[in-house]
């Protein structure tokens, strides 16, 4: 099984991840890749308290996640790997050639970002990074929940907000 979904979501662990994706796919472990969270016991406790007992959560900074990716991928249980930023996923994918697809699950408004979809806002630099990922052979789609349509990157960047 290993990692079923590589997701960029600035809320990190939340309802869509734990319940929306977690229950139908019987997700048994989460890998939260975030340098800040990985270095803070308080942050790690916060996210541990948010996941159900049957779901393991692991924390890693980007360097550790690159080093340990083969372990995540070989895990017999289904899992989800989450980053909060496009740049973090970009760094991860640059160090792990085995990642073939990236899911944009929720990137919300902040200064410098423009709306692409209802739940996807991107800066020009983030757009560029996603195009670099796709040019490297990684399929990039936006899909907040399993029942929604997976929107291809070209459509995300080229279309009207919707």
């Amino acid at each position, binding site marked *: 099984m290993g990692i079923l979904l590589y997701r960029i979501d600035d*809320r990190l662990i939340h309802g869509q991840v734990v319940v929306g994706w977690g229950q139908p796919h019987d997700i048994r472990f989460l890998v939260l890749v975030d340098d800040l969270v990985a270095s803070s016991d308080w942050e790690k406790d916060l996210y541990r308290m948010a996941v159900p007992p049957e779901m393991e959560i692991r924390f890693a900074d980007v360097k550790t996640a690159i080093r340990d990716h083969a372990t995540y991928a070989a895990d017999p249980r289904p899992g989800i790997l989450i980053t909060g930023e496009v740049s973090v996923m970009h760094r991860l994918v640059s160090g792990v050639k085995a990642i073939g697809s990236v899911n944009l699950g929720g990137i919300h408004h902040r200064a410098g970002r423009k709306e692409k979809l209802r739940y996807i806002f991107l800066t020009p630099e983030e757009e560029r990074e996603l195009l670099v990922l796709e040019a490297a052979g990684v399929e990039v789609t936006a899909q907040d929940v399993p029942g929604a349509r997976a929107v291809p990157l070209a459509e995300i960047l080229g279309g009207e907000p919707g």
Partner: protein
Amino acid sequence: MSEGEAPEKARAIVVGHGEFSAGLASAVQQITGMGDRFICLSNTGMAPGDIEQTLRSHLAGGTSVIFTDLPAGSATLAARRVARDMPGLVLVSGVNLATLLDFVCSSATSPGEAARGAAERGRASLVVVERH
């Protein structure tokens, strides 16, 4: 939610996904006429920092209780961050209608006490009925 009325009555923030909070408050209003005790917020379309900031701005008015829906939800995580540096704040996750009804009807001497009692009532209201 207007300020300055019925200060002896407990007030709280209800925050969750979609229209969850507004729906619960409307049910409380229908049953008791006290749905206006709640500040109803939705996390829809909000970044984590925005949820946290919105909670802080409402709590600045003196509210000391937050009800959220999912323990794993972004609203609950934001409320936990707020609670970290706000002593006395009471957070109840997994809220349901029975919880809020008990809260508004409570004769407890503090909102926190009312929230703790309401949480027990809400937990007890989950009953499985099945016929074998």
